[in-house]
């Protein structure tokens, strides 16, 4: 029991730590940076994107595996990870819009990063549209897997490369320090002690959610085969 589910316990403990110590840890208030307490969103908004990227990465690995051996199990893994990734992406956008409303004045300011993630998510939404439009199950799985790989290679230009090339309200744009996720200027070491556990915790819980879906799908499939 413990050997199999240690990571679920870890995700619970890490998120408990994130949600409590994340509000207690001392955050820097450098002059000229109007972030104030909202920098604590680093423990909630940013991990959504980290978890989303992990989900999409796992999904593309299973898509490639599916194309290699045509196993229905790999197809299920791949699809369900995209589904969770999409939910996390939407949550990331929504939480980002709330933060932006108080930080930048309006929920959507057409920032390079906002637009890039919106495009990337729309590409991933189209994955389900494409799969839903095909009747034949094998075709659905195969074209879905190919599209998944395409979508993955659109994701990283959209969220990693494009926002760095132009001026952005997010950190890490042209002429500013850091990467598109965080700014080293207002991230202290004590914040890192919450940030990394938050990244791991949120990622683990998203994997946990996905495995539940996968298990249901596998049982469904077994049932269908038996009938």
């Amino acid at each position, binding site marked *: 029991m413990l050997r199999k589910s240690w990571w679920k316990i870890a995700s619970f403990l890490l998120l408990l730590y994130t*949600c409590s110590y994340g*509000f207690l840890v001392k955050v820097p*208030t450098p002059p000229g940076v109007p972030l*104030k*307490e*909202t920098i*604590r*969103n680093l423990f*909630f*908004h940013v991990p*959504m994107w980290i978890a989303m990227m992990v989900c999409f990465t796992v999904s593309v690995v299973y898509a490639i595996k599916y194309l290699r051996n045509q196993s229905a199990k790999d197809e299920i893994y791949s699809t369900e990870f995209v589904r969770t990734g999409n*939910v996390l992406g*939407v*949550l990331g956008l*929504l*939480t980002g819009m*709330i*933060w932006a*409303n*108080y*930080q930048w004045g*309006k*929920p959507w300011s057409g920032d390079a990063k906002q637009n890039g993630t919106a495009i990337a998510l729309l590409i991933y939404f189209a994955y389900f549209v494409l799969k839903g439009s095909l009747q034949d199950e094998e075709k659905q799985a195969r074209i879905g897997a190919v599209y998944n790989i395409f979508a993955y290679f659109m994701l990283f230009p959209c969220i990693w490369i494009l926002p760095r090339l132009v001026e952005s309200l997010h950190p890490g744009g042209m002429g500013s320090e850091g990467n598109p996720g965080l700014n080293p200027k207002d991230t202290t070491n004590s914040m890192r002690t919450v940030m990394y556990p938050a990244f791991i915790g949120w990622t683990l819980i998203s994997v946990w*959610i996905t495995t*539940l*879906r996968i298990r*249901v799908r596998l049982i*469904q499939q077994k*049932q269908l085969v038996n009938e």
Partner: protein
Amino acid sequence: MNKIKRIVSVFLFALLTVTVNAQETVANPENADFMRSNGKLYVVVAVVVTILLGLFFMYLVWTGRLVRWRKIISN
């Protein structure tokens, strides 16, 4: 079961509108309202609540699908 689901979703959507209202009221004045008090800490609270609502909404949808599927199987 369907009735319970309906009641739960009514409550969930009621909560959703609460968060939306909270955002709208804040859009105008630059200072000294609830969301901007305490160094804008409540923005973080709003973010956490959104994530929680999102996850619960997802669970609700998936549970609904599971229930529907079980009904098909049992028939």
